[in-house]
């Protein structure tokens, strides 16, 4: 006769915290939490003691004080009377400027190099291998220094442009001057600027000028043009899917939506180009691209471009050959195969690492220190710290800037990833 008995009811024993898998994970977590918190408290305590010993406090008030130093490249109004906070913003804008410029050129270079490296042409693919391996295996810092040295040592001085039989001459129809002080390119100026124009006292002629309003208006119109163009394209696709016929002239309408409004604005503002001109010992007018910006920009683009080339190559190779063959079997042209079959699949592989390369490029722009480019590390994390002695606060803000930038970009990447993810079980 079998009797059913309840399992013996045991009380909770302390040893269960370690040996019972139900409780062990809790134990481990609590112990880890306590240890980490103790470590953090220890660090914070050390900071407080050390600050007291040095007679310092923890205060961000220095951001409102007069900076007292000049920044040679500024995208917004700044003088040495401005505050440290303003200097930090100028630095942040400079960082973002070189990062955006670098990302654009690196993508173009990388896509070209990646596609050409897959080319059947032996010499071209070898050449691209040399480029990719050369830039991937040599430190970026060295490339920045090399390009900076090329710019400062290998280019003529402004005075070489002087005289009848000058040693150096400007290129592209006397519009661009490459000197050892930087590259001078034409600037866009407006005869009917929104910021108002001065009039030459002698001749009564209007002096063309440029104001922030002009540039913002122009950019806004161009962006609106692209949005309109996208709208026209989507509408044409919808019509095509419904009726089978794409409305004629869609391409020209899309092009016009971008170009025509921008042209109208340019004409309305009376846009002309202001060419750089040798005056005194240096070039005046035009836009002066400093060597530091050029070296950093080119080096970042070439270096990141090499990595992007590998990503593009891997992405294209990841699409199996059967996809191409299937597309050909359906009677698709090679260009359609590329656009409709290969690229959409390759992009899913390419985009995530591509964006993390953009992130790397942004972080690598802190190597600006090597050529004296005034990015956020040189203003907020460099001169400001040296002048105010607030290294703790300065480094914290600097770190936060980079961290927030990274988190924003990787957050955007996650959203994109989720939107293109293959729907699986």
């Amino acid at each position, binding site marked *: 006769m079998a009797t059913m008995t309840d399992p013996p009811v045991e009380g909770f024993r302390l040893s269960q915290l370690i040996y019972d898998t139900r409780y062990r994970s809790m134990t481990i*977590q609590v112990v880890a939490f306590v240890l980490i918190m103790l470590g953090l408290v220890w660090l914070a305590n050390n900071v407080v003691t050390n600050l007291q010993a040095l007679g310092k406090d923890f205060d961000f008030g220095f951001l409102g004080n007069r900076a007292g130093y000049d920044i040679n490249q500024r995208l917004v109004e700044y003088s040495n009377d401005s505050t440290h906070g303003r200097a930090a913003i100028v630095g942040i804008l400079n960082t973002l400027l070189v990062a955006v410029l670098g990302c654009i050129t690196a993508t173009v270079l990388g896509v070209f190099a990646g596609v050409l490296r897959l*080319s059947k*042409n032996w*010499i071209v693919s070898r050449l691209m291998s040399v480029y990719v391996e050369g830039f991937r295996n*040599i430190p970026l810092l060295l490339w920045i220094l090399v390009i900076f040295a090329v710019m400062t*040592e290998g280019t003529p001085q402004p005075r070489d442009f002087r005289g009848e039989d000058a040693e150096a001459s400007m290129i592209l129809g006397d519009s661009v001057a490459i000197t050892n002080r930087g590259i001078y390119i034409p600037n866009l100026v407006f005869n009917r600027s929104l910021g108002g124009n001065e009039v030459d006292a002698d001749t009564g002629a209007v002096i063309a000028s440029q104001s922030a309003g002009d540039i913002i208006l122009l950019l806004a119109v161009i962006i609106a043009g692209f949005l309109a163009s996208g709208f026209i394209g989507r509408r044409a696709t919808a019509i095509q899917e419904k009726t089978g016929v794409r409305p004629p002239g869609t391409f020209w309408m899309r092009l016009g939506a971008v170009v025509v409004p921008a042209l109208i604005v340019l004409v309305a503002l009376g846009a002309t180009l202001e060419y750089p001109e040798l005056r005194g010992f240096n070039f005046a007018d035009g836009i002066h691209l400093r060597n530091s910006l050029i070296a950093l920009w080119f080096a970042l683009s070439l270096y990141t471009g090499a990595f992007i080339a590998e990503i593009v190559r891997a992405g294209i190779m990841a699409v199996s050959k059967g996809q191409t063959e299937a597309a050909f079997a359906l009677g698709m042209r090679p260009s359609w195969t590329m656009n409709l079959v290969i690229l959409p699949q390759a992009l899913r592989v390419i985009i995530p690492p591509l964006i993390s390369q953009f992130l790397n490029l942004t972080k690598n722009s802190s190597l600006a220190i090597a050529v004296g480019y005034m990015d956020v590390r040189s203003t907020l994390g460099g001169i400001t710290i040296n002048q105010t002695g607030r290294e703790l606060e300065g*480094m914290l803000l600097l770190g936060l800037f980079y*961290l927030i930038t990274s988190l924003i970009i990787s957050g955007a990447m996650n959203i994109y990833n989720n939107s293109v993810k293959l729907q699986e079980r």
Partner: protein
Amino acid sequence: MSEIHAETAYVRTEMLPEQAPPITAAGPVKWMRENLFSSPLNAILTVLSIIVIYYVLQGILPWMVNGIWNADSLSECREIRDARGGSSEHGHGVACWAVLGDRWHQLTFGFYPSDLYWRPILALALFLAALAPVLFDTVPRKMFILTAAAPFICAWLLWGGTIWGPLMIAVGFVIGWAIFKFGAPAIGALSATIAAILIPILYWLFIAGPIAGALSGAIPIGIEAVPSDDFGGFLLAFVIGASGIILSMPLGIVLALGRQSDLFIINKFSVIFIEVIRGVPLIVWLFTASLLLNYFLPPGTNFDLMLRVIIMVTLFSSAYIAEVIRGGLAALPRGQYEGADSLGLNYWQSMQLIILPQALKISIPGIVSSFIGLFKDTVLVVFVGLSDPIGFSNLIRATTDWNGIYWELFIFIGLCFFICCYGMSRYSQYLERKLRTDHR
């Protein structure tokens, strides 16, 4: 058969001699047609490439080949060039490789005492020998004993001083291993693991120092000590790079496991650590190490800048490696985890025997490219005042003898880095092929 032959006269009775294939279907012409001129676009690209290569070589080759190897200063180089009736109309003329002969010891060893150069060289040889059993499985397994001992011997060779310091630190590891090995049957695996971690730490903190001091007082065995400030050039890059690579790997694995863990708190701490480290550039971390570390340590502590940099580089690289390994862990099919569970393996057993070997294999390319990145990033230490090769190229240029010399130094440094990094990437490709187990 023979009758048929007799009737069918149109069948040839003897073989025709073999003919050479048409010139366009064989040999270099065929190769060129297929690889260089297969379409008009390709032909244009080929011609463009050849023009580019020609101009680059025409600019660089004479400059390199005609370079001057024997001179004491840049001005002497220029005199020799002019005496040759040099090509001064080209602007820079010829390379002055003499700077490498004059300053190679600084670029490679920094200010390391020149009569002690054998020590870094011996350490490098030892390091390579210790690496051999890890890299190639044809090397005898007994070599792993050398691998375990090498870090301590190398550190002792490089920094010198008494032998008892590194020895006492090594003893700590032996103690930990012994407790784990012999304590596990007696007090249980978990307690033994905890003891094997805690006791060596206590030993290092409180016992190792006094014992080493006493022993070196009693039996002074040692070699001349070299301070970290004397390290420089490629020696510095190698020391920082190698220590970073060796130390960041285990830390990266732990962080990756933490990030994949189900334990909420451990998971969140790993995520925060990894994202914070990865979100901020290495330069900012290096400045943190040089400017701020003293704030976070008890008042009065002050240690070597090089050690601080190594710690920072290790933490930085471990976050990147953790992400690479996490990718590997995530790429494993779910069935592998379930299979390990169904065999009744516990967490550490399943990780050690089933999951990590596969996950690490998948992540080899990523890990190696992280290592390459780390090694390249060692040049950034120039900004916190250590003299790496680039720092020395600036120092050499600052002397009166070699003021104004750029390209020769850049080429030398770049070439050295290229050889190391390219070697690493080729090794990772070899490893990938060797470990590939799928049948393709």
